[in-house]
């Protein structure tokens, strides 16, 4: 998955990447040349006492250094641009893919997970790509080049390379293999500590009410100790890393001097090669170490890559029609014909055999206990999910044949959870109607019984709302969400238990105000409290995903046992 994501989304940067490779190649060769030039200075200049040669070669070294930094800078520039561009493209692709999802796919992944995938996971992969452009390209070149150069200097000593590399890989690999699980455990313990802290802050009233401070302190102390202990043991392994690497490198230099000395003594090696060989060996070992680090990063990025690939490979279960219908003559007649809905992979349907018609100018209420499928039923209308059985039609047209935008244009939805977007009150109302005038906004707010508190908010329509609307009370949020739907003047209103946080008096006022506005429209209301729907034109009673009663309040009282039970429960509370 990681490989495919990287391959697919790096494709537009192919040319830049080939430049990066070429530049890194030149830069690496240049840095490999430096020790060799130095060896020349020693062998041909110093030993022979040729100062002119020393100056000349010094000039060459300078030129090579300049070439190296120029190429490196260019490579870093192109590499950073490609890697960050890659990240941007993947984010964009993910975002677009999620936008095409129906609520089913969003619910399947979960919004928080999708958010993490869209940002943090991309970040992970992007960093690996960036590292790849700098390390993964230069390390192998350095490794191979270093080995070639070292062997050119003296083939007889090359066995030292063959010994030093495995020693370094084995020792660092061992330490890393100890460190990585430690880091993972540390992260887990850190999450625990933060979780306890978070719970203590979010639950502070409960903790104090039950006098559980000592208990919580113990809980925290334990988590804190666990974290500290794992941190110490992991940190100890980590502190072994650097000294080990250094020792292997230094010991290699010592070995080169000894065995090189032997070879110089029998005349098979020149003295200048000794210094160069040491430098190459250190460079080789550095490259090996870098590659080891890189290898450690891959598993993490691979997980992120899998998570990204999973989203990109998922397609929406709601497919918009090729040539959707945008115009119809009649307005707002909504018909459910034998509708059923089953979640993918679920055994039992959420909704089954639902048939009823909601006429324009009439109010249809839906009632039933929690989990009966009321909200699901409403979300089928704007095609947040697609029915798995039967059809829903608006004005005689199957909703799946509509152009989605044209369909949504007809609907005003007030969801159960009154979600507001960050921005001002006006911004939120413009969600309902992008070109709404100030007068229209105030009118909608007044209808939704929100005018008073918005006026008191200081900046009125321009008052800022935090994301999700958390700065407002539940009731205020609901009223803004209602205004947002009202300002649209849609043909079909969908109220999903939208009055639950309102106090009784406000609720009653709001319903009165809604009457004239929705006179022409088709209104669907999901409700909990019976007294709020007694005057609906028809009531749909849902139980376990099926319609068990359909009629007016009085009819249902006479015929529908489930409805009677619901009514009784609310009245008994009243009468007892």
């Amino acid at each position, binding site marked *: 998955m990681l490989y495919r994501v990287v391959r697919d989304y790096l494709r537009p940067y192919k040319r830049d990447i080939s430049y990066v490779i070429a530049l890194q190649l030149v830069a690496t060769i240049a840095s490999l040349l*430096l020790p060799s030039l130095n060896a020349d*200075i020693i062998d041909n*200049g*110093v030993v022979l006492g040729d*100062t002119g040669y*020393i100056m000349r070669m010094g000039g060459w*070294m300078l030129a090579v250094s300049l070439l190296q*930094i120029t190429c490196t*800078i260019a490579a*870093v520039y192109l590499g950073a641009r490609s890697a960050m561009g890659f*990240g941007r493209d993947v*984010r964009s692709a993910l975002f677009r893919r999620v936008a095409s999802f129906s609520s089913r796919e969003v619910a399947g992944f979960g*919004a*928080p997970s999708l*958010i993490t995938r*869209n*940002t943090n996971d991309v970040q992970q992969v992007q960093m690996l790509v*960036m590292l790849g452009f700098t390390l993964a390209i230069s390390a192998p070149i350095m490794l191979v080049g270093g080995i070639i150069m070292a062997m050119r200097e003296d083939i007889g000593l090359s066995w030292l390379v063959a010994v030093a590399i495995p020693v370094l890989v084995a020792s660092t690999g061992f330490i890393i293999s100890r460190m990585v699980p430690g*880091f993972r455990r540390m992260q887990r313990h850190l999450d625990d500590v933060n979780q306890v*802290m978070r719970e203590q802050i*979010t639950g*502070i009233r*409960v903790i*104090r*009410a*039950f*006098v559980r*401070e000592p208990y919580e302190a113990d809980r925290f102390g334990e988590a*804190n100790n666990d974290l500290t202990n794992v*941190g110490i043991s992991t940190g100890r392994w*980590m*502190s*072994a890393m650097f*000294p080990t690497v250094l020792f292997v490198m230094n*010991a290699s*230099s010592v070995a080169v*001097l*000894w065995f090189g000395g032997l070879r110089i*003594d029998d005349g098979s090696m020149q*003295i200048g090669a000794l*210094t160069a060989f040491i430098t190459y060996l250190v460079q080789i070992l550095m490259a090996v170490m870098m590659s080891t680090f890189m290898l450690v990063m891959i598993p993490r990025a691979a997980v992120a890559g899998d998570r990204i690939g999973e989203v990109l490979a998922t397609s929406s279960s709601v497919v918009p029609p090729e040539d959707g219908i945008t115009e119809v003559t009649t307005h707002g007649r909504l018909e459910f014909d034998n509708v059923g809905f089953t979640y993918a992979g679920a055994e039992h349907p959420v909704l089954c055999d639902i048939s009823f018609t909601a006429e324009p100018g009439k109010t249809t209420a839906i009632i039933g206990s*929690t989990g009966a499928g009321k909200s699901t039923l409403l979300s089928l209308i*704007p095609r*947040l999910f697609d029915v798995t059985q039967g059809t829903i039609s608006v004005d005689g047209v199957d909703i799946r044949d509509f152009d989605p935008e044209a369909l*949504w244009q007809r609907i005003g939805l007030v*969801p159960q959870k009154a*979600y507001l977007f*960050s921005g001002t009150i006006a911004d939120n109302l413009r*969600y309902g109607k*992008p070109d709404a005038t100030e007068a229209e906004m105030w009118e909608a707010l007044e209808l939704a019984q929100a005018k008073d508190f918005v006026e008191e908010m200081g900046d009125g329509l321009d008052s800022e709302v935090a994301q999700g609307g958390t700065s407002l009370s539940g009731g205020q949020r609901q009223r803004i969400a209602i205004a947002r739907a009202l300002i649209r003047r849609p043909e079909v209103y969908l109220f999903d238990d939208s009055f639950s946080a309102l106090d009784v*008096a406000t609720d*009653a006022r709001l319903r009165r105000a809604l009457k004239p506005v929705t006179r022409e429209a088709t209104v669907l209301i999901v409700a*909990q409290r019976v*007294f709020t729907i007694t005057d609906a034109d028809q009531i749909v009673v849902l139980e376990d995903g099926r319609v068990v009663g359909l009629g007016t309040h009085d009819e249902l009282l006479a015929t529908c046992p489930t409805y009677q039970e619901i*009514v*009784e*429960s609310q*009245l008994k*509370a*009243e009468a007892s």
Partner: protein
Amino acid sequence: MTTSAPKKMKETERITGHVGPGRGPHSMGMVGQKSQNFRESGKRLLNRLRPERPKVIAIFIAATVSVAFAAIGPRVLGRATDIVFAGAIGKQLPSGVTREQVIEMARARGDEQIADLLTGVDMVPGQGIDFGQLGAVLLLVLGLYAASSLLSFVQGYMLTSVVMNTVRRMRDDVEDKLNRMPLSYFDRQPRGELLSRVTNDLDNVSQTVQQTMSQLLTGLLTIVGVFAMMISLSWTLALITLVTIPVSALAAGLVMRRSQKQFIAQWRRTGALNAQVEEAFAGHSLIKVFGRQREVQARFDEENEELFQASFRAQFLSNLIMPMMMFIGNLNYVIIAVIGGLRVASGTMSLGDVQAFIQYSRQFTQPVTQVASMANLLQSGVASAERVFEFLDADEEVSDEHHARLVKDAHGRVSFENVSFRYLEDTPLIDDLSLAVEPGQTVAIVGPTGAGKTTLVNLVMRFYELNGGRITLDEQDIAEMRREDLRGRIGMVLQDTWLFEGTIRDNIAYGKLDATEDEILEAAKATFVDRFVHSLPDGYDTIVDDEGANISAGEKQLITIARAFLANPALLILDEATSSVDTRTELLLQHAMAALRTDRTSFVIAHRLSTIRDADLILVMEDGAIVEQGTHEQLIAKGDAYANLYNAQFTGPRNGEAIALGAAAAAGAG
């Protein structure tokens, strides 16, 4: 406030990327903030190491010796090179002559350069490499390096525990502090902000201290040690190398300042994009239905592009530092090679010294860069520490340690005597309120949102300190009791349900930590938790948390009620305890609650007036004052505020018209 805040926290936390202490150079810009008072906060942070002083001294010694050994190493290795060099040259010369003779001979030939070179070499003509001496020198070097590495490990080993324990103590202090803070502090402070202080900032301190302590120490020591060695080898070359310090520092500083800025921009942009993605995904269906996808897409693209620009610049600039340092190093390398070569040729320096010098100069640029970047990282760590200190310095609750412990159980007589209270200095909420509640009475509090109902019961819990008057429990002022004694006698079910992450069993048992399994089951049965628990796959072992996606809001409320039920307190406070429970369950629950309330003084706040009709006393609150009190019948007869509320509730949208429900009830019952 809302349950979405902690969730958001989790995400942002992940975004700011806490990977554990092994992060790469990119962590530099992680918490892009500058401290207000670097010196003072830094000093305070260092003071925190005080309990570990012996260890800190040992660390310092180990680091110094380790660096010294590492610094001497190349010098001794240079001697080994000299031995090899001497042997190589000596072998080419005829044996039987002295070194002086050979030099003389060279000069006689007019070979001045060779003569000069030879004066710098300690060789015996005709004799090859002295392997005995070489072996001894190399063994010494190996020993030095081994000792240096070992000491460096010991230093890191000790430092780890010093840092970890210091941070542990800091965390414990924060924890203790949390428990001593007045609730009003938590109301004032945005929750995300506070959470960020006690989690992100503390982590950042831990990580930066861990990283900088070790590297700053060894980096500085290495600079000193290496420079000392370089001076001992050659003054001139050392001075040339010394020039690289300001050059490297300047170059690094220049680039780092810029890249730091870009990193800050990158994290800010990441945050902004994250917020946007979060909003778009959380409001996914709404955006669709309101047909706003194009606008949202456009905004995302804009922000995405900004993030690209910022991260591209940040990555480019930060990745420049290494090659730049390498270039400066190479430059230095070239100069030393040339000058060194010339001096070897002139015989004023040995080849081994030059070689050692080259190695030293390589060792020199690295710690300079390291120290420069650590200084940056330290800034961020100290800034975080400052934010933690700020929290630790905040005003605490009045201590109640000196109050005597309360032993006997409460009867439950509660009285308010001229109580005044305000959350904000200039907006009085409750003013001169008096009230007496007899043991065993049920008091219902009704009124519109914002009337002060919850505040009233919060005052009984002493969550806030009064601005005037006093509240007594059994004639004793609650301000003169220990908070734990007061609260231990009260059971409270809050408006905002709160569950911690754990099993349902543990969440219920929170009401009584030593509860037996039977007691828990009994409480669960009485509060109808038992009923829905059986439909969950893991029953009582089902893990729930505050976001609680797996159970409904009503079910969460039932669990919190079970918790209070289990606690079996003398005084009960129910604040909108059943608002999300469906009406059929609520009815059943009422009977259980009635049983719980008998013989207990209880305060009940409810929206659904049906639930409080049989209360002994109903208080109607408006704007912080009690406007009416009496029984249901009395208040209905009075026909004022309560009667209006009551009628509004039991009158549907058919305004004024008495609902047909009454008749229906008769029909249903009959």
